């Protein structure tokens, strides 16, 4: 079991969501984040144009079975790509154990519905 943590452009979220759905990923969590980095964003406040160093991105957390890892990673890499600086990052972690709260099912069986 692996956890994929992806930082992506907000503008690519809909594409990534669709790609994950096409790859058979049934659920994931996401939230908005602010960070600092190399890329800057142009902002306009009362006619003043300036480069803001605060970068707004979306973070996705996707936990998958090992068998699904490669296609999930590829789905994100392909769909979140624009080629410009600031496309984001993707991290992969090992997951020690998973439990489904409803029936105490554990291991990778808890990650998907067999139906």
């Amino acid at each position, binding site marked *: 079991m692996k956890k994929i943590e992806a930082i992506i452009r907000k503008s690519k979220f809909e594409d990534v969501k669709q790609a994950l759905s096409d790859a058979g990923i049934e659920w994931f969590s996401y939230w908005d984040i602010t960070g600092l980095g190399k890329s800057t964003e142009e902002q*306009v*406040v*009362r*006619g003043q144009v300036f480069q*803001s160093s605060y970068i707004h991105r979306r973070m996705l957390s996707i936990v998958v079975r090992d068998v699904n890892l490669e296609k999930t990673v590829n789905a994100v890499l392909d769909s979140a790509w624009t080629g410009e600086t600031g496309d984001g990052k993707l991290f992969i972690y090992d997951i020690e154990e998973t439990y489904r709260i409803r029936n105490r099912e554990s291991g990778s069986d808890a990650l998907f519905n067999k139906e």
Partner: protein
Amino acid sequence: MKKNILSILALLAFSITTLSAQNAAAIAPKIDAGDTAWMIVATAFVLLMSIPGLALFYGGLVRRKNVLNVFMQVFILVAVISVEWVVVGYSTSFGSNSIEFLKPFIGGFHWAFLNNIGINDLSPYFISHSQLAADGSTVGTIPHIIFIMFQCMFAVITPALIIGAFAERINFKGFLIFSVLWSLFIYNPVAHWVWAADGWLFKLGALDFAGGTVVHVNAGVAAIVTAIMLGRRRDYKGHAIPAHNITYVVIGAGLLWVGWFGFNAGSGLAADGLAANALMVTHIAAAAAALTWALLDWILDKRPTVVGISTGAVGGLVAITPAAGFVGVPGALIIGVLVSLVCFCMVAYVKPKLGYDDSLDAFGVHGIGGILGALLTGVLATPLVQSAYSGAAYGNFHQLWIQFLAVGVTIIFSAVGTIILFKIVDKLVGLRVSDKHEAIGLDETQHGETAYTNFD
């Protein structure tokens, strides 16, 4: 205010009536229900401009760590200046002085604690509706006390406007002392000069229908002085720091717009055609200014912004304030378009060049908009609205000169007075928060509260 002319007319009318109907019992002056009802509503509207209008407008523009501090600053000013107003503020602004040479400059203490004012007394101040009192003087048609409360709301919002300049870095105690002193020594005298019956600018014929000079130029100049003296915010990098909650900014600007109908249309102190005209030109100027700013954003910076259109609307409202009782729709349109052009240039190009940190553009919008509005009043005042008043566009160049003088004197007085008060308060209690507290945020360090939490 056309008090002088009206008194003469009323006196004439009075002598004619007394001649034609000798010994006829004089009609006792009466409170006009319609005028009074409108003034009570207008007073509430002007309060609405401060809380929550201005509080939301400014609070939305600062960062999330300072929003409560801004709310608190506006809120406590409503409380403390209202008390100051009944104690000495009204008396020194609108009262007359027993010391002869001070009469044109500051009122005395005759009305301190609103002493000598009864609940059924009629307002000695009036614009278009007046009547003869038993003692032969001319009075208005509304109770004196509602005039006092209406003016109280003006006294409250003026120091609150300055908050925009020093937001996010001022010590709360220092702010409070400074604001009270500023009201006592800057606002009250200037209000006396321009609006009181024996004020020297009033007698000179300076036109300021609802407070362009007294409120906006005055506060705007104090704003740039405090912004420069307090220094830049630690995180200021030569450009505006993005607003933390633009929905607040919109709600605030909207409430200011609504409240401004009371501010301007109430300044005629009657429910009549002049008030209706003031409401109309206020609305038209705000609309023209909002539209102009949005178009400038759109053309120059690719997209129309919400902060931009809100700022434009407020700029239009500021600029029409002194003119509301003197111009018609063409004047309102010209003022609305010009104020956005000028204020946009000011905050987008001039401010970054000069490098001062006027956090929320209190000077860029209120100061510059107020100056422009006061001067344009001297150009665009039309005899079609009040027949006694006309501006340079109608051949009366003298009016423009008087407007220049009134604005110039207010700028100098406000700037010098603010510098002195700032120095005194800074020596006494300190005005700038520590760098660490500024970094943590004023909500936490000044009030021990936070506006937003991630959890219940």
